[in-house]
């Protein structure tokens, strides 16, 4: 593979992402924010807890909503990154295949400090198995809650599904416009990718593992 993760991390880190006087980080054509991972964790796990207490029959729906938030986030964030000036300068020159788009995006994720993502296997257009070391979702969960019976990395799971959809279900190489219509086209397709977390730190596993496959809704 042509992707040099270390070079990508060094280049992205060299840009010194920090908030400006507006409190925003303009990067990758996006306005990012830096905030406590616990802020997101508390909100999402409180939402899930409320569903379980008030409407236990909707627990699965709550999980689906949190994963959907990850899919929408990845559509805009990963989509923005993969069509950005930064991507053109740093990652695009390394790309030799469509699979490199996935590997390049994972390298950028690792530069942003959302845990340590590692691609274990990638079957073109079919399946991605990825581990996350020090997932901020699971790490926060382990600290604040009892051991989970179910995996807890909802945003990461949605993100991985979104990445596969952008690369293989849509065509990120054609620089699409990230409209609601395009989202529905690729995420509501009968051949859309869905992700399931098969191992999770929150369940006592040594790391988190996410598998994305084509999985009709």
């Amino acid at each position, binding site marked *: 593979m042509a992707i040099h993760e270390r070079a990508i991390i060094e*280049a992205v880190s*060299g*840009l*010194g992402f920090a908030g*400006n*006087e*507006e409190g925003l980080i*303009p*990067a990758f*054509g996006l*306005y990012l924010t830096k905030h406590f991972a616990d802020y997101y964790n508390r909100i999402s796990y409180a939402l899930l807890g409320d569903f379980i207490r008030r409407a236990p029959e909707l627990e699965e729906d709550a999980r689906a909503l949190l994963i959907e938030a990850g899919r929408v986030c990845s559509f805009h964030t990963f989509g923005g990154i993969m069509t*950005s*000036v*930064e991507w*053109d*300068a*740093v990652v*695009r*020159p390394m790309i030799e295949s469509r699979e490199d788009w996935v590997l390049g995006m994972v390298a950028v994720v690792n530069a942003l400090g959302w845990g340590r993502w590692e691609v274990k296997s990638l079957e073109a257009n079919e399946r991605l198995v990825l581990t996350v070391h020090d997932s901020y979702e699971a790490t926060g969960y382990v600290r604040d809650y009892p051991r989970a019976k179910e995996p807890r990395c909802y945003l990461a799971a949605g993100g991985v599904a979104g990445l596969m959809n952008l690369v293989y279900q849509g065509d990120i190489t054609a620089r699409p*416009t990230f409209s609601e219509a395009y989202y529905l086209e690729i995420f509501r397709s009968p051949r859309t990718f869905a992700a399931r977390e098969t191992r999770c730190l929150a369940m006592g596993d040594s790391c988190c593992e996410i598998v994305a496959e084509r999985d009709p809704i």
Partner: protein
Amino acid sequence: MLEVIQVGAVTVTRLYGCTRRDQYELRAPRPFPSQLRDRLEVGRASRGGPDLYVIDEPGAFQLTVAPKSARALMMPRLTTPLESQRDTALSLAGIVDELLLEAPR
């Protein structure tokens, strides 16, 4: 996409951001000259390496530049009026165009 403006050899595309700010993409048919960074840095902060750098003017804008890709993106600050954002983008495009004319092909 809201508007496409040609400034000499530089194509400026105004992209919708939100009600208070747009984004401006600058593209040229050939790589941006290396002198561009020196010109843009005057009175402004910059960071990054030769292949990818950021010019920042607090209270005004951030410009991310990929010179080899002949592509840059200006992200204005919220406090600047929309018309001023456009003027700044066209002014930056003018600098790029001027240096492209001067640079040997």
